[in-house]
């Protein structure tokens, strides 16, 4: 074994040794693959984080429904993204508007499979963002149709503009110099705008706003689950951002350090805001602040210094509270704060990625391109999602009846409940 390595070393020292070059390239390729697949697995684990966070913020009678939505949108999303989404997003793209091949990927290179695996997890993340916002009053079937269409069409089309093709051609936004390293806009704002469209079509939960328009908080049932979900999301983000290098490169250290600092600053920003506004320091808001920091740094984690990562996260944490208050004011019911955390913080993070670009700080041209990318994301995603949810509500039904809302969607949509020993109060004697 030792001899083998010595031999490899000697060969590597020889200037014109193709064997050594091949060996190093193979090693690098293997390491790239291992890192990409590991990072993909970490991103997949974020689904568990979303499931815990969202179900904890919902009432006990809707726990199974929230978790099922997170579980199954990952399943259906994986299939839809393999069938359609990957080709639309990364296939050969001569026009700059969408990819045209690599649908139903098979008989491909190993690296293609690795990229598809990694990107499938991203697509699932974009789709599952809406589930928390729409919780507690959405029909299961209607939600899944919307989620699958998001993964198959809405997300990949915008992704192709911003990230371009992996094969030939490119995206029109990418060509303009749009910076969104791991998807503050591509993944999170897109998911957030879909969520916004969904909550507009759905309307608020029963009793969420009083007859005089006052906002009424509906407490979640399990804050420890919310906290655990926050930790898992944070952990998964190291794969989300670090894996977006798509290679085992040395800048992963900076990327994940920025990720960690921004998340920490996001939590601090949220806490400071609550303190400054004279409000209690709520754990749910603090966790949302850290997630907003993660969302915001996702665009610029590879291209800014840690100091600016902290500023990016801090502002995102403040934005979460302001965004949440704004949605309350216009009587939109977002159960987990997904629109603030993903859409608003995503917008800010994308602007920050342009402002704090290392070696080219505050370049107005770059910032302008960032705004174009942000506007394009909204103008594509929001109207299409609005139409999609409206159509689903007309054709299949999207809003659960108030009777089902009262009984809890666990029972009415799935015929099972999360906590049978403790949850006896509102169980009716039978479905009919």
């Amino acid at each position: 074994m030792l001899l083998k390595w010595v031999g490899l070393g000697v060969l590597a020292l020889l200037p014109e040794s193709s064997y050594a070059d091949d060996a190093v390239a193979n090693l690098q390729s293997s390491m790239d693959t291992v890192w990409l697949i590991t990072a993909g697995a970490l991103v997949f684990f974020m689904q568990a984080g979303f499931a815990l966070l969202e179900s904890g913020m919902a009432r006990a009678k809707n726990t199974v429904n929230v978790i099922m939505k997170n579980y199954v949108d990952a399943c259906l999303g994986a299939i839809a993204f393999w069938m359609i989404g990957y080709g639309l997003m990364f296939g050969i793209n001569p026009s700059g508007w969408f990819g045209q091949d690599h649908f139903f990927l098979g008989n491909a290179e190993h690296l293609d499979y690795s990229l598809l695996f990694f990107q499938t997890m991203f697509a699932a993340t974009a789709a599952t963002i809406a589930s928390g916002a729409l919780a507690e009053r959405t029909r299961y079937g209607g939600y899944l149709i919307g989620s699958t269409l998001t993964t198959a069409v809405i997300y990949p089309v915008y992704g192709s503009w911003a990230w371009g093709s992996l094969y030939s051609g490119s995206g029109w936004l990418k060509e303009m110099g749009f910076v969104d390293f791991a998807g503050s806009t591509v993944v999170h704002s897109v998911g957030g705008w879909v969520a916004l469209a969904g909550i507009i079509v759905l309307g608020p939960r029963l009793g969420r706003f009083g007859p005089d328009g006052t906002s009424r908080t509906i407490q979640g049932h399990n804050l420890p689950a919310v906290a655990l979900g926050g930790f898992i999301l944070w952990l998964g983000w190291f794969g989300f951002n670090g894996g977006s290098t798509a290679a085992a490169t040395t800048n992963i250290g900076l990327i994940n350090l920025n990720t960690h600092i921004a998340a920490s600053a996001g939590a601090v920003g949220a806490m400071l805001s609550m303190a400054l506004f004279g409000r209690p320091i709520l754990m749910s808001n603090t966790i949302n602040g850290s997630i907003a920091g993660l969302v915001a740094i996702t665009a610029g984690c590879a291209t800014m210094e840690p100091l600016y990562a902290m500023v990016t996260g801090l502002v995102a944490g403040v934005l979460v509270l302001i965004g949440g208050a704004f949605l309350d004011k216009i009587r939109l019911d977002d159960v987990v704060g997904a629109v603030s955390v993903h859409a608003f913080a995503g917008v800010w993070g994308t602007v920050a990625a342009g402002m704090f670009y290392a070696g080219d700080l505050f370049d107005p041209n770059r910032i302008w391109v960032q705004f174009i990318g942000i506007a394009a994301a909204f103008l594509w995603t929001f109207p299409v999602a609005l139409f999609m949810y409206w159509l689903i509500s007309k054709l299949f039904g999207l809003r659960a009846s108030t009777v089902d809302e009262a009984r809890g969607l666990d029972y009415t949509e799935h015929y099972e409940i999360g906590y049978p020993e403790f949850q006896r109060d509102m169980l009716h004697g039978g479905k009919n």
Partner: protein
Amino acid sequence: MDSDNSSLEALDARVARNRRAIYTGLKPFFPEDELIAALSLWQARYSGGPAYALHGFLNEICTTPPLRKIRNDVHRSLRQALFGPDNALESDPLLQIERWKSTHGNGGASSGGNLGARHSASSNPKTQVFESLFEHFLSLVDEKQPIGLHLRSYIDTHLEKVLSNGPVSVQVSRWLRGKDARLDDGLDLAEMRTILHMAYVLACEYLGPAMADSLLSEAVQHCELQAISRLFPPRKLL
């Protein structure tokens, strides 16, 4: 054998003593007829339990808002009688209970929810349970925020959309407006659920869903303590 007999005698003596105490404790608050009905209920369902376990019994007999307001006073009076001196107690009302049971039957005795409240005209357990659940839920809502009348009025004005049968609709309307104290049979299960659900939705709007859930749950639990719930479980109405 002797020890068994002596245990039974001791038990009888204890029940008799507690019966006198319950009678004494309730006497200042109930007219004679309702007092004996309450004692019959206690005899049938609570005499075997520990003397201090009064909450279930009180829940069953204090069903109307006026009675709920004095519930704590009733509780205090019962405790004083149960744990006070024997010579302060009334004589044993056993004969009066037996006489009352012979005219009303055991079923009446075990349905304490009727005490001081609207006496259900229905022979149908489903209707009785609906009436009890609806009334109790509304009274609980009313305690939190005085919107009971508004809820009744809202449901009344929307009855036509819910009930297809005209005469039944008129009867339910009269019952909701308090013109009839009793609700006759005639509503089917789906209609009962709809009416109860309308009340729940309005309670959600005014009190919030968490509070509405909690009050409805409390009302259900209250109904489940009543004997009639064995014939028709109140959860079927949710």
